[in-house]
C-alpha cells in the first residue's frame, strides 16, 4: 500500500487563457482508493483527463507505474481503465455488445472479451440483462454498464469520475461494494464525487481541489482534524470550510 503507483507532478492546463489546473501535484499509492473532491469547475475532470492520456498537459507530467503519460501514453493505457462522468455507451446496442467491443479495443480477443464481459456484467449485477439494449436500461443500470466497461481490461488503475451521479441508493450501494471488492483484488482507484459521505466511507485518502489548485490532501480523519475533533466534524463541513459557501454555477 505504501508503494507509489501514480505521481502527478506540477500539472498545468489552460483553455483559451483560462487556467483549469494550476500546478497540481499528488501521488496515489498502490491498492489505494484516492478521492478527488472539489466544487464544479474545480479542475477535477481536467486532471483526470490528463492522467488518462486524453488531454496533453501544458506543463508537468504524470507517471503511472513508472510510465510517463507524455512519453509512454501507450504503456499507460495498458494499465488504466476510465469510467467517465458522462455515460459513454452505445445505447442502441446491448450491454454485452458494448462490453465486448470495448474489450476488443482494450486488446482482448473475441473469446476473451466475451468471457470478461460476462464476468463484469455479473460483477455489476446485470448478467440477466446482457442481451437487452442499453437504451432500455434505467439510469442506475446504465451507470453500472458504464463501470463494467471500464473494467474490461482488468486495469491496475481505475479512474471513476462521479460514478454515482443521479442513481438510486441501491445502485449506488452496489457500486460502492463493487469498488471495494476491486480494491480487495488489488486495483488502485481514483474516485471523484460530490457526495461527501461517499468519499468518507470509501476513500483511504482525499485531495480537495478548488480553482484549479490542490488545497488539501490527507485521510478523511486528517482533513476533519483541520477544523475540529474528527469524531464530531463531517467531511462536508471540512469541504465547505476549505472551498467556501459561495455558489459556483
Amino acid at each position: 500500500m505504501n508503494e507509489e503507483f501514480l505521481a502527478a507532478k506540477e500539472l498545468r492546463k489552460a483553455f483559451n487563457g483560462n487556467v483549469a489546473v494550476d500546478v497540481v501535484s499528488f501521488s496515489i499509492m498502490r491498492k489505494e482508493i484516492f478521492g478527488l473532491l472539489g466544487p464544479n469547475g474545480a479542475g477535477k475532470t481536467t486532471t483526470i483527463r490528463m492522467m488518462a492520456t486524453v488531454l496533453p498537459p501544458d506543463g508537468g507530467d504524470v507517471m503511472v507505474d513508472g510510465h510517463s503519460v507524455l512519453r509512454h501514453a501507450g504503456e499507460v493505457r495498458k494499465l488504466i481503465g476510465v469510467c467517465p462522468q458522462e455515460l459513454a455507451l452505445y445505447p442502441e446496442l446491448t450491454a454485452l455488445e458494448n462490453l465486448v467491443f470495448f474489450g476488443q479495443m482494450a486488446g482482448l480477443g473475441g473469446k476473451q472479451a466475451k468471457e470478461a464481459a460476462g464476468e463484469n456484467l455479473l460483477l455489476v449485477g446485470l448478467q440477466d440483462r446482457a442481451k437487452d439494449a442499453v437504451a432500455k436500461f434505467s439510469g442506475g443500470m446504465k451507470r453500472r454498464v458504464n463501470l463494467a466497461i471500464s473494467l474490461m481490461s482488468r486495469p491496475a488503475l481505475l479512474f471513476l469520475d462521479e460514478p454515482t451521479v443521479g442513481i438510486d441508493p441501491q445502485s449506488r450501494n452496489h457500486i460502492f461494494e463493487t469498488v471495494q471488492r476491486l480494491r480487495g483484488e488489488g486495483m488502485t482507484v481514483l474516485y471523484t464525487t460530490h457526495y461527501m459521505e461517499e468519499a468518507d466511507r470509501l476513500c483511504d485518502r482525499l485531495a480537495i481541489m478548488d480553482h484549479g489548485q490542490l488545497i488539501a490532501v490527507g485521510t478523511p480523519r486528517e482533513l476533519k482534524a483541520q477544523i475540529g475533533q474528527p469524531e464530531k466534524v463531517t467531511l462536508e463541513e471540512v469541504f465547505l470550510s476549505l472551498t467556501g459557501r459561495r455558489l459556483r454555477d
Partner: protein
Amino acid sequence: MLRPVHIALFEVRRYIVDRGDLAFSLALPMALFALMYGVFGGDETFNGTANVVDLDGGPAAQEFVSRLESVDGLQVRLRSLDEADRALARTSILTAIVIPPGFSDALAAGEPVKLTVKQRGTGGDEGQIVSSIALSVAQRIAAEVQARRWARTTMEGSAIPQPEIDQAAQAAVTQADADPAVDVAVVVEGESGRADGGQFVDRLLPGILVMFLMFAVTLSSQVIVDERRLGTLERLLTTRLTLNQLFAGKFLAGVARAMLQAVVLLALAYAVLRVGGPSSFFQALAFALLVAAAVGAIGLVIGAAARTREQATWAAVFFTMFMTIFGGTFFDPSETKALDVLSHVTLNRYAIDALEGITSGGKSFADYGVQAGIMAGVAVAALTVARWAFRRTVK
C-alpha cells in the same frame, strides 16, 4: 491489427440496428427502385404513338404507314409538317417521323432512301422506340421492293409459273433482309441527345445508385461527432486503440455501409429491372467499391472538420446535392456545354458514366480506367486530408 476491422463490423452492426439509418439508406432507395420499376419496367407491352408526316404520298409511303399501324401497341397519327413542327415546339410531342418527297420512287428505283426523325431532346424513350420500329419497317419494305424488282426483271416473260415466281420473290425478300441492297437510313434532326443513344432508364438506375452511395457521405461525416456526442470517443482514446486504427476503422465502416447499399440496390436492379448480367453485376460492384471509398473518405473530411452534428449534416447534404444534381442523375448533363463542364467536377458524372456502361452498355470495368482512377485518386486525397484533420479534431 484487427481493431479497425472490429470497429467497422461494430459500426455496421450499429447501422443495422438503427432503423432510421436503415430506412434512410436502404428502404428508401428500394422504394424508389420499385417506383421506377412501375414506371419503366413493370409493363412489358409497348404503347406509343408514331407521329408521321407523309410528304411523299406514294405507294411505299402508304405501305409504311399501314405497316406501322399494324404494330401492336403503336398508334399512328398523320400530321402535316407545320402541325408537327408546332407540336414539337410546344413539346406536346417529342418525335415526328417525316417521309420525304420521292421516298417511294427512290425505293422503286433501288436508290438509298432516308426517313427523317425530328425530335426534342433525346426524343424520350417512346420516341426512340418508335424511331427504331420505323427504321425496321422501312428496311423491310425496302427489302420487299428490292425482291420484287429482282423477280420482275429476271423472271417476267419467262415460262416460269406465277407461284414459283412468288416463291422466288419471297426467298429474295429474306435474302434482301439479311443483305439489303437498298440503304435505308434514319436522319435525326433537332437536338441530338446522348451520343450513345441509350435509354433514360439506363442512366437513371446508375444515377440513383450513385446518389444513394453519395448519401454515405452524410453517415460517414457524422461518425466522429456522434462518438464525441456519446462520450465514447474519449473513452476509446483511453484504450489501446491508436488514432490510426480508429481512423482506419471509421473509414472501413463507411465503405462497408456504402457497399451494403450497393449490393442491395444492384441486386434489386439485376433481379427486378433485369439490368445487366452476372458479370456486369460484379464489375459494377467493383466500381461501386471505388465510389464507396471516395465518398467514405470525403465524409471523413467533413466529419473531421465539423464540430457539431448539424454542421456535419448540412455540409454533407450540400455536397451530396451538388454532386447529384450537377452530376447528371436526373438529366443528361451533356445537353448544354455549361452543364457538361460543370458535371465534370462532380464524382457522379464519372461514376454514372462508368456504371451505365457496365450495367447497360455492354462495356467492362476495364473500359473505365480513367473513371476508376479518378475515384481512387479522390479517395486517397480525401483520406490524406481527413487523417490530418482527424488528428487536430480528436485531440
